[in-house]
């Protein structure tokens, strides 16, 4: 509100100033229609503006003047001297009131009634008591803000940018010249001054995003009433400041998104009630600053985006091929909303039109180095997030070298800088494309020199990798020759012929005065993606889906089995990889087992202890139990993609898939665990409760029970177990719920109770224990 009042004051004052000459001229020639119109417009505007605020005095004055002037305009009244001076007095009073409003002084207490009365036909001419000249003079002194043309601000900004560049050049020349302390001190002062001016001007260009949001309530109201929908608008974060230029660039995309949300997102009231929602839809628009980015979110609670419907449309329009459609994740499907020509609404409406929209929105945002993300839950609404950099002109950047040339990369896009010689980084070439594995995370690798057609750095092996997260999506690694420095660069747009390359975001001058190209991380990504024969579209969908391709898919560990075959297993079930000595593997108790870390694990992947010095095993875990899988070497970690051809019969191998053009057998961990007795797992699961302290139980029965994979605990009250063993000649303890009860007698002949087993009737005993084992295995 304060902001609006200030605007009102400033506007009124401007108009008063502009009117000064008109008033004088009108006084001289009251019949001058043009002058009359001018003054009428003024009081009319003031009256209209007053309606927004609670300013009864101003409103009454302007209203009276408007009425009187309207009569003159319609010819009902002549502009006599009394009227002229009355109107002039009113205008002066308006000036005084506005001044008082601005300075917060108490209002002059004169009676406006007299003034208003003087405007009536036949009233006595109003004689001014106070000198309005003094009042206006004061107003000018009090004013602490001025209105500047935006062009002037832009000129100042570009002037300061030039000053920074000139300073940089001077600094370079000074470095080459013999040192003179006095000169250097003076230069430092100049530098500091320029930095300060730059700071201040950057700030003058900052505007509260309120300027952008202020138009929203009205717009939402209009659109909603036109579509006969009920929409509640919530705006938040209006105090976030953003470069003026950015605000202008966001205005259209934001407007479009709001329109779309109301038109396509929020359902009519009946549909909402039917869906169990509040009749009035909620549209939230909020802004917040996050690092050197501004996030603007447009969230509605409407019907959401139907990803599958989008896919159908995309297929119908040929934007998408069926194969690709099959591989799209939900997020990628929703991301199709940014494709040209895909509008979810069935009918074309006057508000959002048809299909022109999100693709344009996206293009506009990306042009200013921002990005748009979409997230939607069908039936629950959509969340669009716009991310834009704070400012366009001066950006922190990293200067790097590649192929003997210097480039700059915007720091905002940089995730991490690594050396290729470091142990965390592994570079591989798979087919035509390169992959960097950084701490187990696989990202596409782009070699900048290759992309730009520059000579490769042959000598130095120690190159640098920069992990880039461009405005627009997937992380990738950029291979460079070296990194120089962090610098604040004044970026100028490059000539169209240079921008046409799609690789550069602008040009700048380095400290040494050489021109430097600012690389465009998203441009590089899409350029490289084209080079990899990946369609631009798929890439862009992937960008939207963000990480989806890399991180949503299950990862497969591809390895070479002991028999030399290529196999793969889901990485998630691999606990770790270990080297063990073959002695640890033995054929014991009916199967191959390995002793490791004080535990015995079933061994899979081989039928006998392999004849080699060291054996590598994968320790697979299902969360409870473990088993070991012997293998030869790790080949790769790849995302699970492509179709699985199932094995003809169930077994260790679930089926075969194609990975990088080769057949790879996919190991079925479920089968392994189900068929390896899953001993460790069993120990954790099957519990046998027995009375401890009895020598026979402790020394004879317990080892037998434990050898069958039971965990033995002492029987007692409240103990949970699968099996309860008790002696026939002691009273039966309370059996745990669901437990099988095994009563053993010391004599071969059964006593009266037939439900007991002779303790050396091994067959019966094992049968009983085995039955319990089976029961729990299948249970």
């Amino acid at each position, binding site marked *: 509100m304060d902001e609006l009042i200030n605007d009102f004051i400033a506007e009124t004052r401007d108009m008063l100033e502009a009117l000064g000459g008109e008033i004088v001229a009108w006084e001289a020639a009251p019949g001058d229609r043009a002058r009359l119109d001018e003054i009428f417009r003024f009081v009319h505007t003031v009256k209209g503006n007053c309606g927004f605020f609670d300013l009864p005095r101003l409103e009454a004055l302007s209203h009276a003047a408007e009425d009187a002037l309207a009569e003159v305009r319609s010819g009902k009244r002549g502009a006599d001297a009394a009227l002229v001076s009355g109107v002039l007095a009113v205008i002066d009073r308006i000036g005084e009131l506005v001044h008082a409003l601005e300075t917060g002084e108490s209002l002059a207490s004169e009676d406006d009634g007299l003034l208003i009365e003087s405007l009536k036909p036949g009233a006595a001419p109003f004689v001014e008591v106070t000198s309005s000249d003094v009042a206006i003079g004061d107003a000018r002194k009090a004013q602490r803000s001025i209105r500047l043309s935006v062009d002037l601000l832009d000129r100042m900004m570009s002037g300061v940018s*030039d000053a920074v*560049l000139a300073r940089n050049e001077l600094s370079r020349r000074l470095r080459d010249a013999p040192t003179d302390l006095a000169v250097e001190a003076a230069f430092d002062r100049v530098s500091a001054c320029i930095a300060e001016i730059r700071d201040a001007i950057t700030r003058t260009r900052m505007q509260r995003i309120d300027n952008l949001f202020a138009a929203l309530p009205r717009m939402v109201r209009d659109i909603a009433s036109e579509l006969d929908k009920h929409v509640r608008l919530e705006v938040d974060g209006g105090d976030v400041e953003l470069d003026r230029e950015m605000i202008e660039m966001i205005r259209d995309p934001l407007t479009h998104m709001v329109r779309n949300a109301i038109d396509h997102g929020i359902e009519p009231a009946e549909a909402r009630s039917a869906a169990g929602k509040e009749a009035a839809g909620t549209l939230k628009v909020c802004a917040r600053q996050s690092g050197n980015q501004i996030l603007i979110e447009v969230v509605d609670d409407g019907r959401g985006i139907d990803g599958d419907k989008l896919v159908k449309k995309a297929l119908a329009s040929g934007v998408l091929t069926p194969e690709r459609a099959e591989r799209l994740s939900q997020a990628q499907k929703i991301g199709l909303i940014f494709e040209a020509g895909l509008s979810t609404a069935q009918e074309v409406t006057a508000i959002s039109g048809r299909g022109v929209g999100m693709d344009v929105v996206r293009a506009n945002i990306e042009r200013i180095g921002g990005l748009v993300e979409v997230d939607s839950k069908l039936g629950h609404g959509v969340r669009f997030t716009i991310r834009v950099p704070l400012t366009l002109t001066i950006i922190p950047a990293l200067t790097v070298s590649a192929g003997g040339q*210097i480039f700059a990369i915007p720091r905002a896009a940089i995730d991490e800088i690594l050396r290729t010689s470091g142990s965390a980084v592994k570079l591989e070439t798979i087919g035509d494309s390169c992959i960097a594995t950084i701490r187990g995370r696989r990202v596409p690798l782009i070699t900048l020199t290759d*992309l730009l*057609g520059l000579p490769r750095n042959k000598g130095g092996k120690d190159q640098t990798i920069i992990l880039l997260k461009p405005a627009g999506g997937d992380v990738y690694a950029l291979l460079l020759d070296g990194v120089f420095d962090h610098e604040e660069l004044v970026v100028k747009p490059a000539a169209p012929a240079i921008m046409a*390359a799609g*690789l550069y975001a602008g040009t700048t001058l380095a400290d040494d005065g*050489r*021109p430097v190209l600012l690389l465009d991380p998203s441009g590089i990504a899409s350029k490289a993606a084209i080079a990899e024969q990946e369609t631009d579209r798929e890439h862009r969908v992937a960008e939207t889906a963000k990480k989806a391709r890399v991180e949503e898919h299950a990862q497969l560990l591809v390895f070479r089995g002991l028999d030399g075959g290529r196999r793969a297993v889901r990485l998630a079930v691999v606990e770790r990889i270990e080297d063990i000595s073959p002695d640890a593997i033995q054929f014991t108790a009916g199967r191959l087992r390995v002793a490791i870390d004080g535990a015995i694990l079933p061994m899979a992947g081989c039928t006998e202890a392999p004849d080699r010095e060291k054996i590598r095993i994968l320790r697979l875990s299902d969360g409870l139990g473990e088993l070991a899988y012997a293998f030869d070497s790790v080949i790769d970690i790849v995302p699970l993609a492509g179709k699985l051809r199932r094995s003809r019969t169930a077994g260790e191998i679930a089926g075969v898939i194609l990975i990088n053009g080769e057949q790879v057998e996919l190991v079925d961990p479920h089968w392994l665990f189900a068929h390896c007795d899953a001993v460790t797992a069993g120990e954790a699961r099957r519990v046998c409760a027995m009375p401890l302290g009895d020598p026979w139980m402790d020394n004879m029965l317990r080892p037998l029970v434990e050898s069958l994979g039971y965990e033995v605990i002492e029987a007692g009250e409240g103990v949970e177990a699968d099996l309860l063993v008790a002696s026939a000649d002691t009273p039966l303890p309370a059996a745990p719920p669901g437990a099988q009860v095994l009563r053993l007698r010391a004599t071969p002949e059964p006593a009266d109770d037939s439900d007991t087993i002779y303790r050396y009737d091994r067959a019966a005993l094992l049968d009983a224990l085995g039955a319990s084992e089976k029961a729990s295995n299948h249970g």
Partner: protein
Amino acid sequence: MVDLLLIVRLAGRRVALPAADVEAVVELEGLTPVPGTADHVAGLSALRSRVLTVIDSWSALGLEDQAAIGSTEAIVVPSGGHTYALLVEQVEDVVESKGKPVPFKASPGPGWSRVSSGMVEAGDDLLLLVDPHALIAGPPLEEAA
């Protein structure tokens, strides 16, 4: 109407440019190549803390074979909000034009017809009047690709 003409030597010819379009004549210091751009973009150069986009005028004419390798003589031309430096073989003189440009009497030769709209009389000679903005635009896209 052209008043002053800048006479330069380009691809073995003496040609005239409207002096009003030309901001300065400079000797370029250093050239930063811009990989991935059209052939007629020679690179970037700095002039008093301004970045100039350097145009290889010979490529822009489609006359690469006549290029004067290593020439650093350039004319500075502001165009469309950017400043360009057009490489030429030699800058000769500034003269007053003696009349309005006249249409060609014969074809000026390959490449030239795109950057020139006519002849102009300068001194004792009739010279090709070259539009520097057409040079900056470079060859049509399909040729540049």
